[in-house]
């Protein structure tokens, strides 16, 4: 490991200085070779600057918006030990040098006037929609389409590079649990699914709050800001338990979706004294089939488009996602950890967790919710669960509480009681 200063590379013969448009890697964040670290605007174009080796961002020396001279230090990075074969390459390029990211060919772009605010802007309908959703000003964007037309891709690139996702999303995915309501009738713990985040519980949380419950949605390990590399799902479950609050009355209703369902089973099995009831929404761990291409797709998604395509599989009907939310999801996710968790969950389309024995031991009232159009898991697997576990079926895909809250949430809020 060695600490290095990163300097502003020269990205063209005429370039003497550049403006930092945005940092894509924040201090503390790891990066892999090839990942974009920052975007710089030179006298002609915006350029993405990739990392030339694996490492960690330590400190930004120049902030977004600052104009910096070529070869001026802009950041401190820590690079990891390299294997013998690549160390030579690293030596040859000890610091990040000028390597201009390939830009799409823009025909005679120099002749194109930059759009002026107030003037008619040539932008595709998709670009306009994306700009609207992401709160981006179209005139700020230089179009790469025909005759300088701003394309949807231009807007997304611009937004990911220069605009932080809306505040609410950042706050909610910063590792802090989301909370709704007060515990008049009890407390509910909500555990989201694989690659999800606490915001997927928003409707559920609001509904439970209206019903007099306090609802707390946790971020699962490996899904957000607190870096966490647990060696096994069991240990991850222990980690979740350690983060749970210790309410005065001691008990809470535990609600888990998908992977969160598996956590919920493990928690209820290990710490039954604190669980008032167990509700599993399309849980992992009770059957064998899982849609492997979805898992792989989620893990490997690098762009908004691929992420959206994969997320569409979770629902029983076509749904659109806000681009900003997708961007935030992409930004906050930790691909390596997701991949590790994904590998623990499934191999070649077969679930690697079988928690039915645990479930059989659990004595708290338990129920399972499934959507009959679930394309990720087989809802029929729930039919072979012990008879005392109630099964509720809905006309939804993999996210019943999210797709059809009107039908699902009232049932959800009717928690079973111990007889």
């Amino acid at each position, binding site marked *: 490991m060695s600490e290095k200063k990163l300097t502003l590379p020269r990205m063209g013969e005429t370039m003497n200085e550049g403006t930092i448009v945005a940092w894509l890697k924040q201090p503390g964040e790891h990066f892999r070779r090839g990942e974009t670290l920052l975007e710089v605007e030179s006298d002609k174009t915006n350029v993405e600057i990739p990392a030339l080796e694996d490492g960690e961002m330590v400190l930004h020396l120049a902030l977004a918006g600052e104009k910096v001279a070529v070869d001026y230090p802009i950041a401190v990075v820590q690079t990891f030990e390299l294997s013998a074969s690549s160390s030579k390459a690293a030596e040859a390029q000890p610091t990040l040098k000028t390597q201009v990211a390939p830009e799409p060919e823009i025909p005679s772009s120099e002749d194109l006037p930059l759009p002026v605010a107030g003037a008619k802007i040539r932008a595709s*309908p*998709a670009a*306009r*929609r994306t700009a609207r959703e992401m709160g981006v000003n179209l005139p700020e964007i230089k179009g790469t*389409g025909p005759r300088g037309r701003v394309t*949807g891709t231009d807007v997304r690139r611009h937004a990911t590079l220069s605009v932080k996702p809306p505040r609410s999303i950042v706050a909610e995915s910063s590792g802090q649990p989301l909370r709704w309501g007060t515990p008049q009738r009890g407390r509910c713990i909500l555990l989201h699914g694989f690659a999800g985040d606490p915001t997927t519980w928003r409707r559920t949380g609001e509904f439970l709050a209206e019903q007099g419950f306090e609802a707390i949605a946790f971020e699962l390990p490996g899904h957000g800001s607190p870096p966490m590399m647990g060696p096994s799902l069991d240990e991850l479950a222990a980690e979740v338990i350690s983060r749970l609050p210790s309410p005065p009355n001691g008990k809470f209703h535990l609600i888990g979706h998908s992977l969160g369902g598996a956590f919920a089973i493990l928690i209820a099995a290990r710490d039954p004294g604190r669980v008032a009831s167990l509700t599993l929404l399309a849980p992992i761990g009770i059957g064998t089939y899982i849609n492997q291409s979805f898992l792989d797709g989620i893990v490997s998604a690098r762009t908004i488009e691929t992420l959206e*395509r994969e997320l569409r599989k979770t629902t029983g009907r076509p749904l659109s996602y806000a681009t900003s939310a997708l961007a935030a999801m992409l930004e906050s996710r930790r691909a390596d950890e997701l991949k590790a968790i994904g590998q623990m969950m499934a191999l070649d389309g077969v679930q690697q967790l079988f928690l039915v024995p645990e479930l059989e031991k659990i004595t708290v009232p338990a129920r399972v919710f499934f959507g009959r159009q679930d394309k990720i898991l087989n809802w029929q697997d729930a039919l072979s669960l012990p008879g005392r576990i109630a099964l509720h079926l809905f006309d939804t895909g993999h996210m019943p509480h999210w797709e059809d809250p009107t039908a699902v949430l009232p049932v959800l809020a009717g928690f079973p009681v111990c007889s």
Partner: protein
Amino acid sequence: MIETTYREALGLALRHAMMEDPTVVIIGEEVGAYGGAYGVTKGLLQEFGKERVIDSPISEAGFVGAAVGAAMSGLRPVAELMYVDFSGIAMDQIANQAAKIRYMFGGQMGVPMVLRTQGGTGRSAAAQHSQSLEGWFLQVPGLRVALPGTVSDAYHLLRASLRQADPVVFIEHKALYVQKGKLDPTQADANWGRAVVRRPGGHVTVVTYSRMLTYALAAAENVAGHGVEAEVIDLRTLNPLDWETVSGSVTKTGRAIVVTEACLTGGPAAEISARIQEECFDFLEEPIVRIAGEDVPIPVAPALEARSVPTVALITEIIRKLVR
């Protein structure tokens, strides 16, 4: 799975339907002794007799109207109109009678008939025997419109048409009769009314049907060599129109090309494009482009005929221009 031709698949569909359902009869010009102008009904007269394979004189309004009456009275007739160009002669029976009977009479009775006909260029049949008139029928609520573009669909779409409760105008393409392909009579590519993505791709959506499917697929293959992945959608039926498949694809690609052999102005491509514009506007990166037949009658000279409708080269070029 068998290897067969479009023509034979159609004949097989008729034969199977007649074996299964004794009320299926065929009425039309030269359908019996001659075996069909394009040979589709060959052998059916011998197998099913002249009570069920009924040769009509040249009398399009008469026999199409008779098929309407037969459909209202317990039979499931297949009327064969030798060329879609002749539909003008029978149009009152198609558009004012067959299409409207269920509605006008408050749902008491329907007209479960299939009007088999064929159209399109490719055989130098000239102006009165080469048109693509599916747009005429799209303007008449109550008519279903099916246009098979593959051997499998020649069989399965015809079988499905013969299960519809409403009149189906079934338009074959004369240039496809000799096309070979695979057919599994037990397995259709999709249900009635669903489009099929014949080639997946993420850069541009090409919406088409009938013979232009073959052209669009060839163009998609051409551009694939240049790193452009065109998604080719075969609509199969224009009524019903599988809108979900089209909008799902255009929403994904942001680019749409509609290819029809029917001429441009006021044609089916205009309707499909308008819908894409209305329903996918926010996802469009480029203008929707129609590649359609020229607004001219079809000339007989092969060199002119071939240029009166879209070519693979043109579709290829436009895809490449649209995806830069």
